[in-house]
């Protein structure tokens, strides 16, 4: 019965996840080569090259490009997630204290989340034009959408704008289940705002925050749409691993494209494993469920007594 109900889901996931994964590993061991065959015709074929595509990640021009994309991806992930978390936490703290206009606020905070990333790329591209509003407001003449540090800043600003409210929303949900009595008790004991934040709010929203940060990190690691639309493909200063792999497959170099895709997958998997195993992010809710069941049992035992 259960197998019957689950099989469509698992079948589709096998097609769109498992097959691509195996196929990517397989393709990453081959390389398209064109040359002349024995009769002097141009022949295109694939030859097995072993780990050559992976070796190329670290040597020569392709290696430089890969390492650049790798460090861009890591840099964007670390900076955006850090900023988002701080800002999201601040947003949640502010919203937690609002009584009126809450629904209105919640709707407005969902707007950046709902704007498609491609559209937000376009929007920020317009804001960051050389004679656009951003330069007018801060009175500068920076070329935000060209190569260089400014373009990195532009990507970070746009990304944080879109995703900090999302973290804020998740953290707010975590804050709202903290019972008011806890704060009252702390207040009676003379704890000020900072102490309440440090010793009550933060520790109690930590599980929620951890899951939110994990999901954001995995999302940031595969960043593609925003730099692609905001700055453009093939720009060294903002090229991420996803963009690099996409570009390679666009050039029909499936071998190296697959190698990049596999590396990105491993990177994402490693981050996820660290979060779940080392930091104990409770992604599936399994831990919570166990605790709830235990509490339930205790309650029942007490009720029957």
């Amino acid at each position, binding site marked *: 019965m259960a197998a019957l109900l689950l099989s469509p889901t698992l079948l589709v996931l096998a097609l*769109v996840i498992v097959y*691509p994964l195996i196929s990517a590993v397989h393709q990453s061991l081959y390389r398209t080569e064109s040359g002349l065959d024995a009769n002097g015709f141009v022949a295109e074929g694939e030859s097995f090259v072993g780990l050559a595509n992976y070796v190329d990640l670290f040597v020569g021009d392709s290696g430089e490009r890969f390492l650049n994309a790798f460090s861009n991806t890591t840099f964007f992930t670390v900076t955006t997630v850090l900023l988002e978390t701080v800002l999201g936490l601040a*947003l949640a703290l502010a919203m937690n*204290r609002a009584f009126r206009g809450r629904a209105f606020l919640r709707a407005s905070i969902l707007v950046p989340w709902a704007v498609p990333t491609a559209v937000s790329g*376009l929007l920020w591209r317009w804001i960051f034009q050389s004679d656009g509003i951003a330069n007018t407001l801060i009175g500068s003449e920076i070329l935000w959408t060209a190569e260089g540090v400014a373009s990195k800043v532009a990507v970070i600003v746009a990304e944080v704008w879109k995703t900090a409210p999302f973290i804020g929303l998740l953290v707010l949900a975590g804050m*709202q289940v903290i019972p008011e009595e806890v704060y009252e008790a702390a207040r009676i004991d003379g704890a000020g705002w900072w102490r309440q934040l440090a010793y009550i709010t933060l520790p109690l929203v930590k599980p929620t925050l951890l899951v939110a940060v994990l999901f954001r990190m995995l999302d940031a690691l595969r960043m*593609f749409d925003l730099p692609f639309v905001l700055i453009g493909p093939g720009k060294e200063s903002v090229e991420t691993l996803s963009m690099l792999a996409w570009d390679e497959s666009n050039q029909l170099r499936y071998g190296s494209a697959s190698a990049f895709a596999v590396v990105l997958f491993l990177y994402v998997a490693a981050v996820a494993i660290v979060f779940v195993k080392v930091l104990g992010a409770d*992604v599936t809710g399994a831990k919570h469920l166990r605790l709830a069941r235990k509490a339930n049992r205790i309650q029942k035992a007490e009720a029957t007594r």
Partner: protein
Amino acid sequence: MTTTALKPRTAPAAGTPVPARRKRSWRSYSVYAGLALIFIYCLSPFYWMIVSSLRRTADIFDNSPLPAPFSVENYVKVFDGSTMFGQALLNSLIVAGVTTVAALVMGIFAAYAISRLNFRFKSVILGVIIATSMFPGISVVVPLLRFFSDIGWINTYQAMIVPNLSFAIPLAVWNLTTFMKSLPFDLEEAAMIDGCTKWQAFRKVLLPLAAPGVFTTAILTFIHSWNEFIIALSMVNDPQVQTATVAISKFTGATEFQAPFGEQMAAGVIVTVPLVIMVLFFQRRIVEGLTAGAGK
């Protein structure tokens, strides 16, 4: 949400001699100032997109906070046919709609099995399904691009819908499972004692109860599929089948030499407005869905 949860949590620091009333007003001002800041932060870029879209091409570089003179020129141009933007919107609707329905149907069955039936490796299967949602899109796109070109699927709807399921199904299964787990089993049990079969109990008791959860999941899945970019960009190059997000990223305008920012903004507004309307109407449900795992 109870009112107690909304009480301000700042404690008057012990022993401060400030009168309570003055202190409260100061505090509420600072709260409102903070809220106004959040409001500006979230909406001003979006506002700027709307304002810019309503300017004439001639004064697109104006920085006045309101369009003067007001003009719908850009909106007319977006739909004048040369860009096939109307077709792109329709394509987005088809792709996102079919993805949502397919993910929901499979998700409901899977979530029912996970939340109501007992079988081995249950948590492993749930874990695997959730883990697949972390899969980077490009790792799906590169191998499938090749596979789809071999079987002649490039420039078809199914070439976008099938890969879309890679993120839509985990999302649907996860949301629906959390929701169904929160529903009491007693009602179905009672129905079955009264002679309902398992299928009838599912259809007549659980499904109506789960309707709000299904609805929330549908909205979230639809928004995600509507916003999808990398799959649509890679699988399709024919403007006839392109989705709206890809179409506007390729908007270069028909005649102008300069990037047609006004038209881009107008197209951006059109693509975003359906989502913003959904957000306004269903904000509570959306927040519930997004925080399903968080508010435990």
